[in-house]
C-alpha cells in the first residue's frame, strides 16, 4: 500500500505541474539562461580554475564547472523547497483535509510529493547541462564513475528527504513558506555554492557542515571535475548518507507532530 500511495501522489503532482505543454518548454528554457548567466558572471574574473581542499588534499577544478555544479545543485535544492510549497498549495486549495481524511500513510504521501518535485524539475537540470554542452566548454575529469554515481545518488536522496522535511514543515506551520524563503540565501552562502569552502571563516564552518548541500557540492565537484575516487570522497558521502537517514527520520516524526498539532489547533484549513 505504501508504494501505491507514493506512486499516486507522485502521479498527481506531476500531472498538476505539467498541466500545459508550455510548462515543459519553460522548465528547460529558463535554466538554460541561468547557466549562461552564471558563466558570464564569472567571465570577468578571467580565472580558469579554482582550488578545492578536502582531507588535506588539493584539487584543481575547472572554474566554470565549479560554478555550474553549484547552480545545478542549488536548483535541485530549490526544487525541494518547491515540493514543500506544493504541500502548502494543498492547504490553500482545500485538498489537504481530503488527503488527511484518508487512511493513507502520511510518509508515503510526502515521499510521493518530494519525488514528484524531483521529477518535475529534473528538466531544469537538463536545461543547465544543455547550456554546458552547447555553449561552454567544461573540463570534466572523471576517474571513478562509481564515485560519481554515488555522489549523484546520495546528493539526490539527501535533498529529497530534506524536501520531505520541508513538506512536513508546511503542514506544521503556516509560516513554512516564509522560513523556507528565509533560508535560501544563507544556504547559498554557507554551502560553498559560489566559493570554495576553505575560504569560509573557521567560525562559520560549523554551520556549513549542517547543510547537506555542502557535502553534495564537495563530492560532486571532486568526482566530476577533480577526478576523485570513492575513497577520496568517502567522508562527505558517508555524511550525506547519514543526513539522508536523519532527514527521513525527522520528516517521519515531523509529519506526525504536524498532523497532531493541526488537529489540536484547527489549522488544517487556515492559511
Amino acid at each position, binding site marked *: *500500500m505504501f508504494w*501505491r*500511495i507514493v*506512486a*499516486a*501522489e507522485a*502521479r*498527481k503532482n506531476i*500531472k*498538476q505541474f505539467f*498541466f500545459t505543454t508550455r510548462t515543459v518548454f519553460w522548465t528547460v528554457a529558463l535554466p538554460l539562461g541561468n547557466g549562461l548567466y552564471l558563466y558570464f558572471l564569472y567571465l570577468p574574473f578571467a580565472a580558469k580554475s579554482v582550488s578545492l581542499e578536502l582531507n588535506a588534499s588539493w584539487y584543481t577544478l575547472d572554474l566554470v564547472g565549479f560554478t555550474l555544479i553549484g547552480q545545478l545543485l542549488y536548483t535541485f535544492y530549490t526544487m525541494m523547497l518547491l515540493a514543500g510549497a506544493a504541500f502548502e498549495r494543498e492547504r490553500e*486549495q*482545500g*485538498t489537504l*483535509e*481530503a*488527503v*488527511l*481524511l*484518508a*487512511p*493513507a500513510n502520511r510518509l508515503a*504521501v510526502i515521499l510521493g510529493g518530494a519525488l514528484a518535485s524531483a521529477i518535475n524539475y529534473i528538466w531544469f537540470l537538463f536545461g543547465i547541462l544543455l547550456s554546458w554542452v552547447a555553449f561552454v566548454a567544461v573540463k570534466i575529469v572523471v576517474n571513478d564513475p562509481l564515485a560519481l554515481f554515488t555522489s549523484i545518488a546520495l546528493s539526490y536522496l539527501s535533498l529529497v528527504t530534506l524536501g520531505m522535511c520541508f513538506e512536513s514543515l508546511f503542514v506544521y506551520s503556516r509560516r513554512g513558506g516564509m522560513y523556507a524563503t528565509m533560508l535560501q540565501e544563507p544556504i547559498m552562502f554557507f554551502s560553498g555554492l559560489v566559493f570554495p569552502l576553505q575560504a569560509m571563516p573557521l567560525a562559520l564552518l560549523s554551520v556549513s557542515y549542517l547543510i547537506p548541500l555542502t557535502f553534495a557540492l564537495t563530492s560532486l565537484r571532486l568526482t566530476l571535475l577533480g577526478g576523485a575516487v570513492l575513497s577520496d570522497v568517502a567522508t562527505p558521502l558517508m555524511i550525506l548518507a547519514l543526513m539522508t537517514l536523519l532527514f527521513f527520520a525527522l520528516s517521519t516524526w515531523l509529519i506526525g507532530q504536524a498532523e*497532531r498539532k493541526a*488537529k*489540536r*489547533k*484547527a489549522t*488544517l484549513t487556515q492559511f
Partner: protein
Amino acid sequence: MSKHNFAVMARQLTRDYISTKRSHIVGRKTTTVIRALDNVDFEILEGELFALLGPNGAGKTTTVKILCTLLEPTSGQAFVKGFDVVKDSARVRRIVNMVAGGERMLYYRLTGRENLEYFAALYDVPKGEIKSRVNSLLELMGLDDRADDEVEKYSKGMKQRLQVCRGLINNPEVLFLDEPTLGLDVNIAKDLRRFIREKIVEEQGKTVLLTTHYMYEAEELCDRVGFLSKGKLVAVGRSEELKRKAPTGFSMEVLVTRLTDEALEGLKKLEPVKKVLTTAYEGEIEDEKIDRLIVSVDSDLAAPSVLNYLSIMRCRVVSVNIRGPTLEDLFMLYTGE
C-alpha cells in the same frame, strides 16, 4: 446501550478554539477562548439519516470534523462504529468519508476520473476494482460523459457531484455531508437530495450525518434532526415528534379588511390566542386595505373562536390559512434566529 450499538455516538463533546492577539507588535498577548461545542451528546443509529441543524457558527462543521478525525475535541468522546475518533482514528478513517459544500477538496487540474483514481489509491481500493468503481460512481452521478475533462472545466453542480463520488470512493459505512447543497441550483440540489435518500441511505444502507441550514432539506431527507445553537445541542428527535411537542403551537394566517385598533387589542386578549403579529400586505379588495395577521394559537380547534371574534368586531375575513409548526419555526424557537 453501549457505543457499539450506534453508528455514531458523541458524549460530552466539547471543542474550544483559542485565539491569541497582541494589541500591537510588542504588546501583551490576549487570549480569547471560543467554545464552539459545549458538552454535546447524541447518537445516530445504523442506516439512519440524521441532520444537524443550526445557524452559521453553531458548531455543525466542528462536530463533523471531530467525527471524521480532522479535529480533536477539547474534552469528551466520540465513537464511530464503536471506534474512538481520537484513539482509533486510523480505523475510523477507513470507514468514513466526508463531503463538504463549496468547491474545495478536488484537484482542478486533474480530470474527474484522475481525481477519483488518486483518492482510490489513498483509500487502498483493490487495484482490480478501481476502474469499475470509478466508472460506476461517475455513471451514478451522471458524470461519465465528462469524466476525462479537467475539473476546472466543470460547472459548480458537476464539481459537487464529483465530490459525492469522492465521498463514496471507499464505500464508507458512515458518510458525513457538510452542507452538501451549498450554492447549488434548486434542481441540482433536489436531485442530489433524492440521490442521498434513495441511493445512499435506502439502497446502500449507509449511515449519513447531514449538516445544513436549509430546513426544507432536513425536512425532506432526515429521519431525525438535532438543533445546535451556540455550540449546545438544544433539541433532538424525529421532526414530527419535535413539532408535536413544540410550544409554538399552530399559526393562523388571516387576511382581513376593516381591522381596527380596538379589534386588534381585543384579539390579543382572547383566551386561545398566544400572540398576534400584524404585517403589511400588498393589495386591496373592493378598495379596502388588507391587513395580514399571524395569530399563534394552542391548537387548530381555536380557529373558530378567532374567526367568530373578528366577525363580531365587523372585520371582514378575506382568507384563512392554518398550519402546524414547521422545522423553520422550531429552528427559530431553538436557535433564536
